[in-house]
């Protein structure tokens, strides 16, 4: 049985590496800090919880430079993402969100750490678990909740839904429903960046389920041949829907699967490790072509809102990860131990976030559903005045502008 295997194999213990190792820091930095910590321009160095494991390259240092402002931003951004996904859960149960809803809570460190190391001129493309990635790219809570509820204020004006968020001006190319398709697309973005001599890179995110897709290897082969500045990021949350990684992949060492392409295994629950890895990967990709990052992460929810997430893994495993490796808690502990804020300040911040989320939801609920004429808009960028038809074409037809 799958669950028995989990308790006995090393895979379970791998998921529960404690975060206590993250709390080492230089004692000279201890001093009392007021709420102007955000203006504090000190930098200090923190060790990642785990060393990086490298394939065909030399790993970056475990010592990550950061500063108070950054750490507080990490906390705020991840707490917002956490709160947002939990609120989406409630909205789905209230039937205000329909269809698919794939939640990211547990994986926030990947989205936030990545943003810390890149610019909006770099590109990100991901699959359907995209709400937090979109937020990280500069999307607003209003755009997110409106899109989830199919309203005009949504980032895709209500026409896309949960899996199809985009923000092209901020380098976010979706939001894709077909498992694995986003990887060649991401390599294509990198091709265009190189062709245009932009000096930027593309991050193509995919899961452990998608890691076995043939098109991934096709695109990786071409990317390596053509030296494209693409970083493939496997968000390994250890389950492809209900199938554990050891049941789907003969080799679940996803960072090694690129063979001739270098790879790095990263603790995806440690936002500083993610930041360091992405910084390293960007430099590598611009000079040497593709690289794979495997983020060891975890999702608390099931695959989607239709999946309780407990038939193929134990509740102990889920609560164990929450206890030992939660990415938001890790940063909270860092902020507190470095005296960047008090417990009360952080709690107040979380209350403020909750309020912001609730306000965004209320505003999103006010946003109207799309006009009926939107059924026929944006089929083409240039419709050529052609006719399009509804189910009864004698009743419903439109001219595409």
């Amino acid at each position: 049985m799958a669950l028995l295997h989990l308790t006995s194999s090393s895979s379970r213990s791998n998921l529960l590496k404690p975060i206590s190792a993250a709390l080492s820091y230089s004692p000279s930095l201890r001093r009392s800090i007021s709420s102007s910590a955000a203006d504090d321009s000190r930098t200090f160095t923190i060790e990642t919880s785990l060393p990086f494991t490298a394939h065909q390259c030399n790993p970056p240092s475990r010592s990550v430079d950061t500063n108070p402002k950054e750490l507080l931003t990490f906390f705020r951004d991840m707490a917002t993402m956490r709160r947002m996904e939990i609120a989406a859960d409630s909205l789905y149960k209230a039937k205000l969100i329909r269809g698919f809803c794939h939640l990211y809570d547990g994986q926030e460190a990947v989205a936030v750490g990545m943003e810390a190391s890149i610019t909006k001129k770099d590109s990100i493309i991901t699959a359907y678990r995209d709400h937090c990635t979109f937020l990280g790219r500069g999307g607003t809570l209003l755009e997110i909740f409106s899109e989830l509820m199919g309203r005009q204020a949504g980032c895709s004006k209500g026409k896309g839904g949960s899996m199809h968020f985009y923000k092209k001006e901020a380098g976010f190319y979706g939001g894709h429903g077909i498992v694995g398709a986003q990887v060649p697309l991401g390599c294509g973005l990198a091709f265009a960046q190189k062709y245009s001599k932009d000096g930027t890179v593309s991050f193509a995110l995919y899961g452990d389920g998608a890691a076995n897709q043939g098109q991934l290897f096709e695109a990786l082969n071409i990317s390596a041949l053509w030296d494209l500045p693409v970083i493939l990021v496997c968000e390994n949350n250890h389950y492809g829907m209900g199938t554990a990684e050891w049941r789907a992949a003969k080799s679940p060492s996803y960072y090694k699967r690129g063979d001739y392409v270098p790879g790095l295994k990263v603790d995806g629950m440690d936002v500083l490790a993610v930041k360091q890895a992405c910084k390293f990967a960007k430099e590598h990709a611009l000079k040497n072509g593709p690289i794979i990052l495997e983020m060891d992460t975890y999702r608390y929810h099931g695959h989607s809102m239709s999946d309780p997430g407990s038939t193929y893994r134990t509740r102990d495993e889920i609560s164990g990860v929450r206890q030992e490796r939660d990415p938001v808690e890790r940063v909270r502990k860092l902020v507190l131990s470095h005296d960047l804020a008090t417990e009360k300040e952080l709690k107040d911040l979380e209350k403020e976030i909750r309020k912001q989320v609730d306000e965004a939801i209320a505003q999103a609920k006010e946003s109207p559903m799309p006009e009926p004429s939107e059924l026929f808009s944006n089929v083409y960028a240039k419709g050529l005045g052609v006719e399009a038809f509804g189910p009864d074409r004698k009743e419903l037809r439109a001219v595409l502008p």
Partner: protein
Amino acid sequence: MLGTLRQKILGQSLQRTRSAASALRSYSSAAKEMMVRDALNSALDEEMSADPKVFLMGEEVGEYQGAYKISKGLLEKYGPERVLDTPITEAGFTGIGVGAAYYGLRPIVEFMTFNFSMQAIDHIINSAAKSNYMSSGQISVPIVFRGPNGAAAGVGAQHSQCYAAWYAACPGLKVLCPYSSEDARGLLKAAIRDPDPVVFLENELLYGESFPVSAEVLDSSFCLPIGKAKIEREGKDVTITAFSKMVGYALKAAEILAKEGISAEVINLRSIRPLDRSTINASVRKTNRLITVEEGFPQHGVGAEICTSVIEESFGYLDAPVERIAGADVPMPYAANLERMAVPQVEDIVRAAKRACYRSVPLAAAA
């Protein structure tokens, strides 16, 4: 300007007399001959020259000069950054092409034949066709997928399918099918300039055929409108619609019918999606009879759509049931005699036209 106008009229009237006297290929100095292959090559060359964002990728398009020599000379002229030889991995390279289009480049992805596009069809439909809609206009996809489509000669079942009906069913795609060199130049240039994903279905057997081209057609600014069919031959008794290679067959059938007193109007569809319903319907309202011709499989084919469109809009004008001529409902056989039976021949089109005109036609013996 008047000169070009006169040239255009002269060119058009020459084309009509040309169709009538099909054997005669020599003309006045106004018309020049061009092979379809060269027409496509010149269109690619001119568009790549005009817009640095346009690039070509596919198997053997570069050093091999193109599997069918359509991209001959382009690697030498534009270099390996703009003419890219890919490995034999359609899903991967098509996805890369679509991703480049997302970013704002204008890729031309060549499939060695459209049979291989099935390996990449998810990217054509789900990544390209639907993106502008799903993103509410944020992500437009200015890409062209081109290559030979349909039956060649003796290449067997896996290399002979026509994909016009499949791709034309999909909202978000535009589907073009050139016949002549003028079509090839004008439609390919239009496709490359268009901001939406275009499936451009060529025909291997037409690559080596020559057609007259006017000076206007040869001009680098020449472009044909997408969504407009062309009346290749005017007539008054029966309408025959066709695309790609079948246009030539329909014109030959019209010649034969003319000798028997039936005046056939031949419509070269040029654009399968959008389909020029108004030209088709206007023609049927004039002739009252319709034959649709295509090479692909009959069920759910292009002819089925045209027939329904005419029934919806011009039912009262029909004097006879709509006839459709299509490829046989079998995978393409290899043996030459069976292959000949599996694709429409000129006599099939003639026979169907006569049936629509209620001329007695000897019944075939029951199989």
